[in-house]
């Protein structure tokens, strides 16, 4: 008998008797099936207009010490990125192929390392900024949702000291349940190997619970949305 069979055997033996329900019948009757389907009703409210979501996302981003700019054109996005390059003194950057990076990144006029194919991790480690696309921006929590497929692999969005996300307006979703719906619709049964919900720059409070940014991952997170 394999260890798997032994463990499952013990579990089945134990589960012959069901545990009492955690809720009273009245409480249980108020929940939808499955229970988490009602999450939208209980989570922090988000409003129902696009401009509510923009406002909420930027307020959350500010709380998280992330930068968020809603720009009106690709040109403005390029200008914003060039402004960042100058302000931060970027010398080398990294990105992946995609509609937005292909259109925007050449404006930086600096060497751009690509992570589309197998690459040398030391080269990525030497870059000042990682520029990626994403799958969604979640207004409710100020979160960027991206995957290994949409954002140039696993390391590009975590290794360089500054992470810049290039997003489209139609990627802004109101809340977490919408983000999970989107995920299932977009990938169906063929999920990427990594799906990450990024909420602000890398942070720690492990020394006297004092907030420090850039513990291991990016010290700065900038979201540009066109």
């Amino acid at each position, binding site marked *: 008998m394999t260890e798997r069979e032994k463990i499952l055997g*013990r579990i089945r033996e134990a589960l012959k008797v069901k545990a009492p329900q955690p*809720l009273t019948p009245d409480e249980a009757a108020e929940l939808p099936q499955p229970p988490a389907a009602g999450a939208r009703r209980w989570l922090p409210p988000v409003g129902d207009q696009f401009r509510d979501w923009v406002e909420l996302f930027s307020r959350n981003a500010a709380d998280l010490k992330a930068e968020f700019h809603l720009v009106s054109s690709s040109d403005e996005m390029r200008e914003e990125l060039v402004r960042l390059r100058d302000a931060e003194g970027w010398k080398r950057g990294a990105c992946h192929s995609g509609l937005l990076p292909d259109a925007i990144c050449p404006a930086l006029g600096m060497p751009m390392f690509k992570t589309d194919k197998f690459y040398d991790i030391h080269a990525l480690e030497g870059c000042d900024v990682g520029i990626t696309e994403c799958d969604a921006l979640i207004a409710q929590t100020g979160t960027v949702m991206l995957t290994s497929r949409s954002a140039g692999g696993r390391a590009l969005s975590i290794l360089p000291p500054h992470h810049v996300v290039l997003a489209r307006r139609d990627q802004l979703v109101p809340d*977490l349940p919408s983000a999970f719906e989107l995920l299932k619709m977009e990938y169906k049964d063929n999920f990427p190997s990594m799906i990450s919900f990024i909420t602000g720059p890398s942070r720690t409070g492990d020394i006297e619970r004092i907030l420090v940014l850039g513990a291991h991952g990016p010290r700065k997170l900038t979201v540009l949305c066109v």
Partner: protein
Amino acid sequence: MTSRARKFLKDARRVTADLRHRQIIHAALHNYEAARDRRKAAFADWLTARQAAAATKWEAINYLDENLTAFADKLAARGAKVHWASTDRQARDIILQIIQDKAARCIVKSKAMTAEEIHLNEALERAGLEVVESDLGEFIVQLRREAPYHIVFPSMHLTRGEIKDLFQSKLGSAPSDNPEELTMVARRVLREKFINAEIGITGANFAIAETGMISITENEGNARLTAALPRTLITLLGIEKILPRLEDLALFLPMLATAGAGQPMSGYNTLYGGPRQPDESDGPVEFHVVLLDNQRTRLLADTEQRDALHCIRCGACLNVCPIFRHVGGHTYGTTYSGPIGSVITPSLRGLQDWKHLSSASSLCGACTEACPVKIDLHHHLLHNRRNAIAKRLSYLEQFAYDVFTAIVNHPVLWSLGKKAGRLLQPLHRSIQGGPLDPLRSWTRTRDLPPLAKPSFREWWRKRK
């Protein structure tokens, strides 16, 4: 009393009297409470969210066989290797074997309480391997060769000055006691380790049955790096981490962050559903997932306490517990401390050895109130006390209870005892709490109020 119970009492006494310790913990948790209350209030309906979380975990655990097989089969279909370990030893052997097959030496680890539970680091070090904790708090306690103080905040008992001295002596570098500069020292040291590591080891916060994915919650990005850079990734998790559906996370991720740290969401919540796929450019070539039982099925067989397996390890019950806040995390001597640790440790590691933890409680119920998945923690502590007594009682204890039972069952004996008590109490007063007092273990830190005169019965009779 067992030697573990004696040690618990001794340590508890020492730490409780340590005012500096108390001040550090108080300061650390003060901000947490304010932030947590703010985040809870931001929910449209936190109470119903808790009920939904409890119902979801009930389903996950009471159909654990179906959920686990779905999880394991989905994950394996995507190229991950799933291992099953009944005991801590098996889990250690599996992990050691994977590492030795690769002839790897350099291992980075992100925070995993399950790894603490099976004493993984010690086993790897005994085999001559270098394993580096990458979570800042874990890195600090690893340098001190100490267990984590708290399941979520491993180094909350240390001041910046102590951490500066530690970095100075162990890393030879500590420019100041500024938290930011200290963090950057650790970042530089650990970045080097990440780049060179051959093996990454992580824990997991959730396992999704529907899609065969693990989910890791963190703030620093060290788990992201651990799961991105090394060629081989090993994830160790308890079998109770399961959630039925992917979208359950829409509820559990914000609730975990809110209850655990007063955040709307933790910095990084990342799902992994396999090793690097054919169309992907990086990530581990091999992904091993080790499912650990280690007596969890024993807890599962106890229908009364089964819901203790609903725990998502947010640490909220530790943060609000008056006992934890006074005796401190290390005093418990267990991997999981605080109320949840006192509830599950007797099941996981033996009732007789750990029953004393269930008595280290004021039964105030703050833990039950704080739990985001509504585990009835303080009643479980009572269940443990009852079970400990049902199992075995020392002769002396049994004798004391027999005498007490005889007295309270016979009105004549009761009234005699009362009279004797009233006569003897003035004498007792003179030695109360001192070394000659036979009741010292009670009276040393507590008052024994004088027996009422007249007694209730006498008063009642007169009143009539």
